[in-house]
């Protein structure tokens, strides 16, 4: 179980995130939404131990994140960052293989099979031999997704976590949905998926639960269909929205023109 306890992070005397206490259960797709600057990426960085908590703590399996050895932590959680800068000319396959640095050693053919499978599940099998700097933004995002999947491909001693920072940002419509379907499939296998998203309709369609951040604080948390409504959208985003219920039980929030 990954959980935060009164978690906060301040930089230059300014609170980027404060007083977040939240449990992220394995086997669920947990969405994090909120306006720009609400602290979504900060939360993900704290959950991944990229940044230290300046207040409170993050615990994995009841053990503070700061106590985890780096290699062990690397087998338990992976983070897909927003930016994918890499100027050196690795091939896509090599980039994905970098994610396997601390994975349990296997034979080279087994390693190659895992890298190929990760590329395939991220929809990037056809990019395997291409050089990374020659790829488009969306292609890079898929290769990086494959790298992150390869990192936590093996079963570990406890539940694994997949942290996705705006995974759909550079992707076309087809791959946005493919990416979230993949996240659902991983959640179904017992992996805790925590994804920062912007589109409330993607949250409604795919997420099991959602945390809404505003101004560095947790504004609301719960099941998407119960908390994402026009009142919350007005309160958090200042937007007028209309709820649309499809005949198949699907629900949408449409932004009104004025």
């Amino acid at each position: 179980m990954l959980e935060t306890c009164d978690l906060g992070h301040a930089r230059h005397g300014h609170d980027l995130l404060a007083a977040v206490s939240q449990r992220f259960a394995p086997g669920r797709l947990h969405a994090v939404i909120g306006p720009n600057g609400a602290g979504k990426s900060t939360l993900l960085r704290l959950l991944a131990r990229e940044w230290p908590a300046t207040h409170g703590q993050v615990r994995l399996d009841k053990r503070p994140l700061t106590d985890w050895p780096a290699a062990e932590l690397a087998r338990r959680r992976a983070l897909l960052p927003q930016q994918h800068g890499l100027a050196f000319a690795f091939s896509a396959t090599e980039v994905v293989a970098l994610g396997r640095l601390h994975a349990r050693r296997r034979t080279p053919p087994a390693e190659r099979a895992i890298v190929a499978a990760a590329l395939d599940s991220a929809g990037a099998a056809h990019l395997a031999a291409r050089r990374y700097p020659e790829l488009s933004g969306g292609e890079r995002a898929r290769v990086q997704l494959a790298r992150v999947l390869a990192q936590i491909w093996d079963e570990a001693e406890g539940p694994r976590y997949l942290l996705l920072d705006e995974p759909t940002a550079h992707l076309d419509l087809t791959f946005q949905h493919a990416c979230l379907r993949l996240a659902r499939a991983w959640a179904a296998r017992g992996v805790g998926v925590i994804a920062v998203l912007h589109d409330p309709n993607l949250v409604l369609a795919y997420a099991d639960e959602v945390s809404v951040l505003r101004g560095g604080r947790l504004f609301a948390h719960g099941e998407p269909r119960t908390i994402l409504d026009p009142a919350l959208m007005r309160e958090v985003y200042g937007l007028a929205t209309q709820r649309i219920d499809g005949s198949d039980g699907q629900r949408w929030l449409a932004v009104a023109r004025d």
Partner: protein
Amino acid sequence: MPAAMIPAFRLTPLRCGLLLAAVAVAAFVWALASGPLTIPASHVLAGLFRPDALDPTERTVIHALRLPRALAAMLVGGGLAIAGCSFQAVLRNPLADPSFIGVSGGAAVAAAACLALLGSQAAGPLPAQALIGLAALLGGLASAALVLGIARVDGDPQPVTLLLAGLAVNAFAAGLLGLIAYAANDPTLRAITLWLFGSLGRAGWAELAIAAPLIIAAALQLWRDAPALNALLLGEAEAAHIGVDVAALKRRAIALGVVCTALAVAVAGVIGFIGLMVPHMLRMRLGPDHRALLPLSFLGGAALLGCADTVARLALQPTEVPVGIVCALLGAPFFLALLLRWRRSPDLA
């Protein structure tokens, strides 16, 4: 003949390594065979394994003069190239080379000061060679710490500040070197000047005994870190997510690069370009995987400086040209020609 008709030859890391090793061996034999006294290659090979097969003059020339010098040339070349490769990886800056963060400047000043003060006397129990090596090491570490410290903002070295701080420290070092040379007496002045342009003329068994174990140990440790250095190319945060202890890795790789550079400077003075050129050429052909790139850089630097030093000894007999000048005169045009051919390579984007 159009390019398409040439059968495709893919340069794999293994083939490249075999090629470079062959060049290095050839350079080694060439270095032992050539000079004022020409010794046939067959004698050289026989003499390496059975010294008594040689006549006394040949034996002295090979074992006392040419063998330590040839080994030192290869060690210095390999050390500079692998140091350049590690600085480029850690700073994720393809412009980085051993002089880039002021290491060779600082090492040169400290070693020259030591040389000027001591002459060639031993101080207490330590031979002069060990003192010069130690001084170079301290000078190199101090300037690296200074440059990296100045360029650090929020714990991260900023590329442009780093470049500027490195340039400033190198300029300051050049000024200090000028001052030392200006104040020195004639024989010391000649020694310092020769050494500033880079020369293996002083390299003997004592220098080799001090530098070789340290450079080789540093190079091997860098090679062990190759997978982590690869991960570091993704970015520091990403490397940390994969499980790399980024701060420790950076400290270690920079310190090991400084050890290689400073000892190379202590043995042979300032030889530019190898640390920049060799890793770049290899990266353009083979890609950025440090598991192959680091050892091949060492081999490539060794082969290159092995050849260059023999050219330096033979070019203007009976005197010799400083090998740093040979490296610059041969290396720069060659590198420019390669850039012209490979400028569309994605590594140069």
